[in-house]
């Protein structure tokens, strides 16, 4: 594996967006930052399946558009966004609150390795060896916001890092997108408030890409599927509805698609292969 390198403000490799920060810090980078514009996908660690599905779909859609997905490698939304991005072999950037050699949370080590191996980057303003401390995370969030051309909040409570990222993003002029949710759900409240305060409501991954292309420019890549299974996957139990088939017909079609290698299972989910 490559060694972490220190990138100073003003150098060619330094992400342009970070100059928008008043205190633009030098950053440690493990892997490749890449030329593609980044989109931050952030949200709560305690997300619902709904949030996970969306984050994964957004990660996938953003990489399909040829952009880079920026997030924080935390549990929940962050993890799902990175996963969705990597599934389509997209460019993933994870900004950590610890040293770039310190994977936190530990269970994301596989994801961490995959990000580096797939040509993505692990970024931190703290020197290698720095342990994750609670107080470093809000500071890390300003890097996520500044490195990205836009911030997408998937699910968030009113307290929490995702809203900090959105606020910091808005302060330096980044457009903020938020997924509207039920008004009585704790994990929708943060997003709903962002929308009330002027964030763009996101109506789905296609809508997100459309809105983002107004900010970033047209997507570089577009692909589609013929079996109608979206890149974020669907639960097996939803397939009869999706395909308008009986249960038996659905199971037969699913089995065939699996045999043809067009879809695969992830637990109870079916995703395009």
């Amino acid at each position, binding site marked *: 594996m490559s060694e972490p390198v220190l990138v100073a403000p003003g150098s060619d490799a330094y992400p342009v967006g970070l100059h928008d920060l008043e205190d633009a810090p030098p950053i440690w980078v493990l892997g490749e930052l890449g030329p593609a514009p980044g989109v931050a996908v952030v949200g709560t660690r305690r997300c619902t399946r*709904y949030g996970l*599905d969306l984050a994964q779909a957004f990660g996938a859609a953003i990489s399909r558009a040829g952009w880079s997905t920026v997030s924080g490698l935390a549990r929940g939304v962050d993890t799902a966004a990175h996963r969705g991005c990597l599934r389509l072999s997209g460019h993933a950037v994870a900004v950590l609150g610890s040293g770039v050699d310190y994977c936190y949370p530990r269970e994301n080590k596989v994801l961490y390795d995959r990000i580096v191996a797939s040509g993505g980057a692990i970024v931190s303003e703290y020197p290698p060896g720095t342990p994750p401390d609670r107080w470093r995370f809000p500071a890390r969030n300003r890097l996520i916001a500044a490195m990205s051309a836009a911030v997408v909040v998937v699910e968030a409570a009113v307290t929490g890092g995702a809203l900090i990222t959105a606020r910091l993003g808005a302060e330096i002029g980044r457009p903020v997108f938020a997924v509207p949710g039920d008004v009585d759900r*704790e994990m929708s409240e943060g997003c709903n408030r962002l929308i009330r305060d002027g964030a763009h409501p996101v109506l789905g991954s296609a809508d997100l890409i459309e809105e983002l292309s107004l900010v970033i420019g047209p997507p570089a890549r577009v692909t589609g599927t013929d079996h109608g299974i979206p890149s974020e996957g669907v639960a097996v139990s939803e397939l009869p509805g999706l395909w308008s088939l009986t249960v038996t017909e659905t199971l037969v079609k699913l*089995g065939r698609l*699996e*045999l043809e290698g067009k879809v695969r299972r992830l637990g109870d989910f079916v995703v395009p292969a």
Partner: protein
Amino acid sequence: MYAATTSVALVGGDVRGVEVQVHVGRQSEQFKLSGLPDTAVREAKDRVRAAVASSGIKFPNRTVTVNLAPAHLPKTGTDFDLAIAIGVLAASREIPHPGRVVMVGELALDGSVRRGSSSIGAAVLSARSGVSCVVARSAAAEVAAVPGSSVHGVSSLAEAVALLREGIDQRTPADAKRAEEPEAFGDLVEVRGQPLARRALEVAAAGGHHVLLHGPPGGGKTMLARRLPGILPPLGDDEAVEVALVHAAAGLNRGLSRSRPFRSPHHTASRAGLVGGGSGVAVPGEVSLAHRGVLFVDEMAEFPRSNLDTLRQPLEDGRVTVARRGVTATFPSSFHLVGATNPCPCGYLGDRRKPCECRPAVVSRYRQRVSGPLLDRFDLVVKVDRLEASAVSGPDPDSTSTVRDRVTAAHGRLVEDAPVLSGEAEKLLATALDSSLLTGRGVYRVRRVAASICALADDGAVTEEHVAEAIGLRGEW
């Protein structure tokens, strides 16, 4: 003076004749009992003495020695009372020797005969050896349904004595109670939505596959599992007897019911409770009480792993050997296993609306509580999601009786000749193996499930379509 009568002991889901040997000697009054009796059997001495006196018959005031042969077999319960009393009276020449008649029943102090759990055993022995049997009147009609048995019911010792004096062959045996229609718990029509789970249940019922249902609380896993016995064909004559004998060995009376057993042990059940145990005499566990029926293991991951793994032998062999100090007994244990589990300890992993509170490490630990070899036994793994309100409306799904008819027909076809795979289907499976979509064991399972699907559809040979559906049904937890 000596006489011998016959009674019955239930051993390992089967019956054994017990010879009750009675000797009346010349010494002073004494009552001895041998042949490994437990406390309940030993107390027969007091019950028999009082019952004989209450019936107005003289109890010999000499040395009475009773041996229950085979003497090395531990005896339990109160069902030997009647045979002991008749033996004593025959040995003291109060009544003529009864000849070969199987007798089972507990005596009350007033001389009345109460039903014992081995009554069914008496009827089975009667059918097997072609002799008559005498049981409590309250049990007679029920156990007379054992095919080939000749059962006489008595309500008191005096009545039994009168019957034997007159000659048992002079009387007509009790009529068998008509078998009741099997009763099922709830109808499948009550299960709304869940089309996939319903289909999986039907395929499982047709081919005898074990099913794992997983999903958040409130999805209807228990509701579905409870309806599996109902969609299986009712028990046949021999099966009903098998099941009744195992239940009787546990002291449970289910008569000759044709409904399939449904057992649902709690996760705090001990290993002995699950696979069988008992001290002195072997008692069947849940795996045997579920014989020919359904064993529903709810909250599977909450069971201690070592207890769950004890299910593997009965699953593999269809019977289980219980070895206790002094006794070893083998009980049948051929059952449908239905497992149910939450996706994670809090139950909401994967839920669309409620966040999961579990850390990933906790989730993977939770799954490891069910061992791989046991998970391998489940041919069908289905997610049961909580229902969206919209799914509850809509047309009525198939009812239990409709599904049972299809399953019964499929059973017949599978028994007659197991469907073979068409060339295309074989090719499809080979592709699946080559592309490592399926493992070798996976292919074996898909093959079995495809055969069941084929039998349900009444197609001659297993087609590509059946194999594809079987692959579609193969989920993972």
